[in-house]
């Protein structure tokens, strides 16, 4: 049962293990730099929406890092697919596409979880008090699932490695900076405000920040995140069906 799901995870986790140290060290650096520069740099006096800036920043770093890690599987899938043709081994096996998508998505979630734990660790080190509303768990699950499945979709529809980098430059990076991770979106000019409200990160950051800082949980936003997750799961399935080796 679930042999496709188990197989994909087996492969990804074993490959991950071989370079885990390097990867974890590399991905732990950028949130740390953000914390030092903006958290310490601004000091305790700067507050945003009534929170010390560093408390505002930590949830943003959690969504940013976990997005980077879960969406980041697209890069790995690309290499797997175009350079090493390992992906063919999944396609040739008697497994359904759903299992391949779920296996890859859970690998993305697994990697995101490591980055989230790391930031929780940072927040302890920096003495930042976080609350933990139970909604955090479904919210972070949906958030990482939706970006992992978006990553799978991208990896399946791009023609080569280069187009993947273009998508990152023009979509992912701007999204990470504008969707309320580092500052509240209501500070944005109207046009940008309109743009960020079609992007899922805006909603997941809001819900996740509220769940960690004692804010009011917006369940409508939570359901929007769930909607995005379902849509991207669908596009990932659609994309993998039309993949030809």
């Amino acid at each position, binding site marked *: 049962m679930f042999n496709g799901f188990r*197989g994909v995870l087996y*492969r990804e986790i074993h*490959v991950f293990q071989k370079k885990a140290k390097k990867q974890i060290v590399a991905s732990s650096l950028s949130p740390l730099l953000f914390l030092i520069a903006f958290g310490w740099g601004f000091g305790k006096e700067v507050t945003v929406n009534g929170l010390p800036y560093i408390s505002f920043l930590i949830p943003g770093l959690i969504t940013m890092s976990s997005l980077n890690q879960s969406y980041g599987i697209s890069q790995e899938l690309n290499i797997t697919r175009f350079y*090493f*043709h*390992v992906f063919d*081994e999944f396609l*040739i*096996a008697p497994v359904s596409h759903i299992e391949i998508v779920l296996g890859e998505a859970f690998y993305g979630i697994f990697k995101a979880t490591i980055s989230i734990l790391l930031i929780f660790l940072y927040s302890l080190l920096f003495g930042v008090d976080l609350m933990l509303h139970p909604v955090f768990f479904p919210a972070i699950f949906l958030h990482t699932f939706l970006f992992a499945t978006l990553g799978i979709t991208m990896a399946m529809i791009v023609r080569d490695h280069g187009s993947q980098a273009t998508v990152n430059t023009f979509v992912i990076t701007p999204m990470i900076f504008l969707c309320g991770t580092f500052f509240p979106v209501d500070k944005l000019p109207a046009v940008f405000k309109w743009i960020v409200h079609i992007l899922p990160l805006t909603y997941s950051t809001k819900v996740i920040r509220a769940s960690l800082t004692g804010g009011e949980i917006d369940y409508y936003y939570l359901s929007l995140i769930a909607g995005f997750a379902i849509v991207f799961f669908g596009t990932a399935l659609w994309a993998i069906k039309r993949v*030809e080796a």
Partner: protein
Amino acid sequence: MQLNNTILTVSNLVKNYGAKPAVSDLSLGIREGEFLGLLGPNGAGKTTTIKLLTGLTKPDGGDILYFGKSFFSHPKQAKELIGVVPQQSNLDRDLTAFENLNLHAILHNIPGKLRRGKIDEALDFAGLLEYGNKQVKTFSGGMKRRLVIVRSLLHDPKILFLDEPTVGLDPQIRRNLWDLVYRVNQVKKTAILLTTHYIEEAEKLCQRVKIINSGSIIADDTPAQLKKEVGSFVVEYLDQEERKERFFASKEEALAALKEIDGEAKVREATLEDVFIKLTGRRINV
């Protein structure tokens, strides 16, 4: 029980890339235990054919049946029966040989209890028993090829697709691999569809050879019969600096003809290359 059931029936397969057909109107059948060769030059459509038969690409027309059932409506059932050795190695370089085999075993639902034994047996069959825990990126070309072959057999497929399995290997290692492939067919009774552009490979290994050119099958028989049809013996001679051939049914006739030719000339046995030249006017390997 009926012996030699048909495993695979392919009819009128078509695949176009743009306006250009890579495979056109290709039909073939493979029975249990059979060793069939698909011989043709580069770009003839061999890899495309294998990709179509294993579901890696979709046809523009035609039908593929495994044990009488449509591949397209029962892909999972069919995929349990097939093993694939692609032209380009798709091993995981970062994983060990054992991990590569274990991954395949999981994907093919081989029960956990049987896996260890089957993997050891496979490593042994490939002569790689001591290399199980070595990363594949440390392997030579021949070792990788042997590993892919035994990996493709781990789930005991009824039919094995080998796409140019010896391309890029030294002659010595190529022979070594022929022996492995031959044993697979003889010992495990696995039916094999092997593609190649090496004449010798097709002649040595295959019971039946289909010659493919520009996406179409242009001849289909045993190697001996194919050669017999063009003439089993060849007189090769130079005619105004140009190499020419004449074909004869027997050695005696060929030797008689040899005597009549002035200048440099010799008698040799026909090869499948001669068959190809006779059919297309071109050589397979240019």
